[in-house]
Structures are given as structure tokens and as C-alpha cells.
């Protein structure tokens, strides 16, 4: 956890806290500095090139980042994303509590709805971006970034003391598998015998898998149609049904040209789709308004942490804005590379990579907000100025790729 993101204890909470239930075994592991393995680690330990991420040993790639990336765009692929933290928030005031914490209005959502939103500091800076899942007004799930697991849990726990809610950390006894790509639904039907066709985007529902409850949402981090399957009652020591789910996907995946995929492809896929990454494109010193994500703010709701700054920025505008960059010259932009226009520095890259689909350098960057789309700027790539065009992502042709594509 970075020091600038460390939550501050709200001063009004120093009184006597009411009796509440706050549980997390994963936080104990973090406190002890133990490297964690997900429920599925044994399934790929010998098959993947591994990397450490947010305290977990995870696959960087199985075969190659590029082939895995293209498989997801052209067919499907599946990812172990069990490192992402999963919380359960229950209680009479669950809805009221969450509406104070996040930027969208969860009371307007019907049960079964997943919402992309933000946790923010009082000054409007982003603590994390996340998805809330409303099972009922008294029961919500939340999936947050692995790198922010501890920070988010502590922040929520601190504020929850003012409300009649309980907060529990489901991360260490549940698994999360993401199946992404135009053939994701067909693969899941063939491999897991689950019919997900009634599920619309950003909806979730509960199904039975091998006698266990699996929560399936039509969500993802690739720009493609896809599903995320959370299986409860599985641990790293006793992965049972989670391991079975992974093996069934691997076995049926072959016929679909749908391989297991690693974090490398996950990053290039999200960047091609223009989806931000916390720690790079979103930080404690940026707001959702600066990141161009105002559509995930409901300024009409009564109050939430960060609202004052967001409302002011929406009406007055911001100096910088998160934009997409498409390299016209050969070269690959990387984070922190400066951006120039007519010799003046106008911004800086926050995420950059080689797009496997377009075979071009692409980036997300904070740039002076006065520059319109279509402007040509220069990225300083280790001393060489490379021309790039400001383009709204996704970078791919949405007629051919992504969840809005027209299926043949």
C-alpha cells in the first residue's frame, strides 16, 4: 500500500464505536507479510510464467501475451482473478452506508445490478475503482483491486462504525474466474453447463455448480463480452470446486481456441479498451472527473465522500484530463514518458503498451484538457520525439471487436 493512499481516520469517529462484525483472514496474512497464492495456484504453477502482483504469485503468461490477447479478441480466454478482493456488506443500513462511500447511487439500482464506481477521499481523490453488486438493499458484494485490498477494507471498516452494517472479507474463502471474449458464453455453457444467456451486461445472478453457489456477473476488464464467476466455500488449502471449474474450462477451451491467460494479456486488453488501472491512471491525486469518468458519478444524490470537489470540477472543468494516445510513429510509450506540443510539456503517459491487435503503440495519458481529440502531440520516448494522436478509446474498431461488435 502506498503511503499517500493510506486512509486517514475520520476525526468524528473517535467516539465509542458500536458493536459490529468486521472479519478478514486475508488481512492477517498481509500483516504477517506472507506471500499469498490463490485457490487456483496449483492448477498453473507448472504451466505459467509466474510473476508477483499485490502479494500474490500469479501467471504473467502461459504461452505468450500476444497469443492470449488475440485469443480473447477473436474467441475467448479465461483468467484467475482470485487475487482481487471481495467484500460482503450486510445490514439494515447497507444501502445508506454504501451511498456515503461510493460515487454512484446504489439505491437507484434494482437487485441483481452491478455498478462500476469509486471510493474517494473527502478531497475527491480516488481511493479505488471497484464494482458493487446489489443482492438486496441490505446485502451488497464489492470487488476491489488486489493492490488496494487492505487500504479499502480498513477505510470501509472505519466508516462502517457509524452505520448498522457488518463488513466481511470473502477473499480467502472464495475464487474468482473471469471468462472473456465473444465466445465466453458458449464456452461456459459447454464447460460448466451454465446457461447465462438471460444475464444482461452489468447484471449478476446465482447459479449452482457442483453443489456450491456461484455468483456470475456479466462484467470484465477486457472490453469484450464476458463473465466473472465467484465461487464461495473454496480456500487455497481446499480448492475443490474452483480447481474443477478451472480444469473444465481448460479442457473445453481447447475446442474453442480459448486458452488460460495471464496478467500480461489482462493489461494489454484493458489498455486497448481504454479501461483505467488504479495506481497508474487513477491515484489519490486524481479524481474520476479528471479521468473522464463523470458518468460514474451521481451528483444528484444527497452526499458522498468527495462530492464537493467532484461537483466543482464538473461545473468549472479541470486542467488535465485522461486521454487516449495512438502512436503515429514507431515506438512504444511507457508510463511517465512526457508529452509535448510545440516544445511545451502538456502531459505525461500513465499507461502505455504495444497493442497486439493494432500492432501500434497506445497509451492513456493525462494531458492539458484544452487540447481537443484529433490533436497531434509528441511523446518523448527516451529522447526521441514520436508523433501521437489524441483519440478516445477503445482503440480498436468497435464494429469488429469488443462487446458492442456486430456478431456475424
Amino acid at each position, binding site marked *: 500500500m502506498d503511503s499517500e493512499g493510506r486512509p486517514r481516520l475520520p476525526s468524528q469517529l473517535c467516539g465509542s464505536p458500536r458493536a459490529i462484525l468486521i472479519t478478514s483472514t486475508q488481512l492477517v496474512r498481509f500483516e504477517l507479510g506472507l506471500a499469498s497464492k490463490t485457490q487456483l495456484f496449483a492448477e498453473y504453477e507448472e504451466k505459467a510464467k509466474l510473476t508477483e502482483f499485490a502479494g500474490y504469485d500469479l501467471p504473467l503468461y502461459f504461452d505468450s*501475451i500476444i497469443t492470449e490477447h488475440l485469443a480473447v479478441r477473436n474467441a475467448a480466454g479465461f483468467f484467475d482473478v482470485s487475487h482481487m478482493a471481495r467484500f460482503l456488506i450486510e445490514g439494515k443500513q447497507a444501502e445508506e452506508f454504501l451511498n456515503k462511500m461510493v460515487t454512484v447511487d446504489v439505491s437507484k439500482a434494482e437487485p441483481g445490478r452491478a455498478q462500476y464506481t469509486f471510493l474517494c477521499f473527502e478531497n475527491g481523490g480516488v481511493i479505488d475503482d471497484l464494482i458493487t453488486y446489489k443482492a438486496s438493499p441490505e446485502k451488497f458484494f464489492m470487488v476491489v483491486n488486489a493492490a488496494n485490498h487492505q487500504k479499502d477494507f480498513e477505510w470501509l471498516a472505519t466508516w462502517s462504525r457509524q452505520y448498522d452494517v457488518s463488513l466481511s472479507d470473502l477473499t480467502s474463502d472464495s475464487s474468482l474466474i473471469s471468462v472473456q471474449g465473444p465466445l465466453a458464453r458458449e464456452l461456459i455453457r459447454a464447460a460448466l453447463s451454465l446457461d447465462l444467456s438471460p444475464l444482461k451486461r452489468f447484471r449478476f445472478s446465482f447459479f449452482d455448480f457442483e453443489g456450491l453457489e456461484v455468483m456470475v456477473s456479466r462484467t470484465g476488464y477486457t472490453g469484450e463480452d464476458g463473465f466473472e464467476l465467484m465461487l464461495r466455500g473454496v480456500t487455497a488449502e481446499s480448492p475443490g470446486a474452483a480447481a474443477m471449474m478451472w480444469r473444465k474450462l481448460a479442457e473445453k477451451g481447447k475446442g474453442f481456441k480459448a486458452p488460460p491467460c495471464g496478467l500480461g494479456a489482462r493489461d494489454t486488453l484493458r489498455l486497448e479498451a481504454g479501461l483505467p488501472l488504479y495506481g497508474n491512471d487513477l491515484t489519490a491525486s486524481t479524481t474520476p472527473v479528471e479521468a473522464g469518468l463523470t458518468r460514474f458519478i451521481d451528483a444528484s444524490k444527497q452526499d458522498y465522500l468527495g462530492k464537493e470537489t467532484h461537483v466543482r470540477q464538473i461545473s468549472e472543468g479541470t486542467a488535465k484530463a485522461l486521454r487516449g494516445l495512438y502512436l503515429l510513429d514507431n515506438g512504444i510509450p511507457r508510463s511517465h514518458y512526457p508529452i509535448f506540443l510545440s516544445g511545451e510539456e502538456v502531459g505525461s503517459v500513465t499507461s502505455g503498451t504495444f497493442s*497486439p491487435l493494432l500492432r501500434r503503440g497506445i497509451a492513456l495519458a493525462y494531458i492539458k484538457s484544452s487540447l481537443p481529440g484529433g490533436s497531434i502531440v509528441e511523446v518523448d520516448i527516451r529522447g526521441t520525439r514520436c508523433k501521437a494522436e489524441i483519440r478516445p478509446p477503445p482503440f480498436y474498431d468497435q464494429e469488429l471487436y469488443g462487446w458492442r461488435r456486430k456478431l456475424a
Partner: protein
Amino acid sequence: MRAGKYEIPEDLLFTKDHEWLRVSGTSQAEVGITHYASEMLHDIVFVTLPQVGTELEGGKPASTVESVKSVSDVVAPVSGTVTAINEELVQHPELINQDPYGKGWFFKMESSSLSTAKGLLMAPTDYAKLVEQLAAQEG
């Protein structure tokens, strides 16, 4: 010879930074990166090459190689002048992964210090030991 799954041709010299040098005649040499390096970088997607005529200093960066995730310098194993570059790599950087000691060569150089290079660079057996050590750490 091989070090684990990595190929190490016996007619080349190596640097600890994983470049290879193929000496021909008294002053001509070809430079590239080793099989081990190309496997570590994985998915090579971009290279920059020096211009023909550039004076290179031994041990200093001469070129760059980028994978999806990272960018690395390619160091000139010896001092000398660039006489040719492998322009095919600009369009087909994957040649480095496919054939690191052949079609994946980076540049050729003319050097007057090749006779002393043998003492400064690593022999195939020494480089194989280095790769074995690194592969063991990798696990």
C-alpha cells in the same frame, strides 16, 4: 552446447548482459542477443537500431529491444563502427524470438579491438555457467 533449454553456439563470444558476438576475419563482427535473453524478454515487439556509420563504444548501449512489458538496452560488446543493420527486424521483431543467432541479428561492425575481445568477453562454456545459475534462480 546447451544450458538447460537454452541454446549456446560454440563459435560465438558472449557478454554478461546476454549479447553475442560472431567474429569473422580480423576486423568484422556481427552482434545479437542470446536465446536466453530472447526467452526472458518474450514477445519481442519492437527494436531500435543504430545508424550505419555510428561509432560504438564497447559496453555502452547501441540499440534497444522491447517486449510487451519492458524495454532493454542492447550493449555493444566491443568498440567499433556500424557497417550494416538488420532492417528486417523493424517490421519483423519476432525474428529475434524465432532465430536469435541467425535471422535475429542486430548489426554488424568493423572493429580494431577484436583480438583483445576474446579476453574481455565470455567463452561459450563460461556463458553457459552464467545461464545455468540464472535459470536455477528463476526456478
